[in-house]
């Protein structure tokens, strides 16, 4: 692929431009509109974008277990996300969002965050079920509707989104990332779970944490020592949001206005 790019005079740091343009074409042609393009075109462009994007991400020849799982989960997420925004039927779109969340949960687990995986699944499962009830209640069951079969400015909005993506990809080449404290060991167990302030307060760990099985314990310790005020603020926010949503949906009488 670098040969192909080089023939166009594009440098080595720009190898993401082909999948980006292909994905833009795919999303633009697949967005719902009154007279749609044949879906084969968009599907072809999407497949080529996926393949070239995967080749851009997975450069090394040797594919280990983690790389395989990463490719599987992120592939599920990205395909389901594209399907969600191009899907006419809102029920199918909500189901695709479930797949996006599940793929992201797999990526969380791969990153050594099992508690976050469980929390995301539980919270989003509840949210999705409620949304699902709303969709089934409100969506137009038969025929076509302006809400589902039209897009607002499909070219401009997909251009805006993919321009942002291109800017991000341009800004994060691997050479510009900060040389972090990450050890060559993919899961630096000895430092995991120890927040920088807990040692000041004498809350040091008496032994090295086992990872990632004890992730929840150390997450809880970090939450309720270093981030206690934030936890209280989050609880207050949830309470206020509950009261607010009750107020918004309450049917007021005319006399009270």
């Amino acid at each position, binding site marked *: 692929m670098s040969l192909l790019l080089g023939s166009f005079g594009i440098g080595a740091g720009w190898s993401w431009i082909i999948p980006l343009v292909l994905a833009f074409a795919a999303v633009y042609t697949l967005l719902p509109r009154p007279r749609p393009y044949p879906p084969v075109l968009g599907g072809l462009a999407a497949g080529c974008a996926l393949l070239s994007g995967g080749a851009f991400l997975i450069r090394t020849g040797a594919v280990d277990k983690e790389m395989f799982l990463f490719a599987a989960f992120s592939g599920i997420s990205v395909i389901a996300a594209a399907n969600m925004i191009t899907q006419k039927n809102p029920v199918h779109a909500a189901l695709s969002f479930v797949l996006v969340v599940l793929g992201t949960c797999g990526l969380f687990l791969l*990153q050594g965050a099992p508690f976050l995986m469980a929390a995301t699944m539980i919270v989003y499962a509840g949210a999705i079920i409620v949304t699902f009830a709303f969709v089934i209640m409100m969506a137009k069951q038969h025929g076509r509707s302006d809400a589902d079969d039209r897009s607002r400015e499909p070219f401009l909005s997909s251009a805006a989104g993919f321009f942002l993506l291109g800017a991000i990809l341009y800004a994060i080449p691997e050479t510009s990332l900060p040389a972090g404290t990450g050890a*060559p060991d993919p899961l630096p167990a000895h430092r995991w779970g120890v927040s920088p302030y807990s040692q000041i307060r004498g809350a040091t760990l008496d032994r090295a944490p086992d990872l990632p099985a004890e992730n929840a314990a150390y*997450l809880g310790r970090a939450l309720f020592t270093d981030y206690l005020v934030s936890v209280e603020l989050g609880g207050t926010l949830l309470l206020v949001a509950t009261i607010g949503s009750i107020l918004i949906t309450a049917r007021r009488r005319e006399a009270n206005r």
Partner: protein
Amino acid sequence: MTPLNLLHNYLVVGAILFALGMVGFLARRNMILMFLCSEMMLQGVALNLVAFSRYHGNLQGQVFTLFIIAVAACEAGLALALVFMLYRTRKSLDVSLWQDIREVGEPPIADGEPLPAPPEPQGFPHLIPSGREPSKPQEAGHA
């Protein structure tokens, strides 16, 4: 795979989710779908935070992601309440019906092309009755 490569991969996937959510939010007109797209953008950000948490070997990113989940729950409640109210007023989920509250001086957006007619509903086929109806045995009391 060095940790730097891994971090870069996760950042790219997070950016893709964020951008796709943004495209969906800008382009779709169904209010519930717009809300789901904003949730997807939050997923991309959470992925970034967790990747940095692992890269730096501490838990700050994961704690931040927990707060994102809490804020997303608040947002879901408020957004669904608002969508419900808006639906009750206009009887439709189309967000373009609310363009009368746009900026002063902006021209309204009109839908150009009409939607194609919905396909004809397929009725059930009429079957020609055939054969002979067997005579029913009559009960003795009613004969």
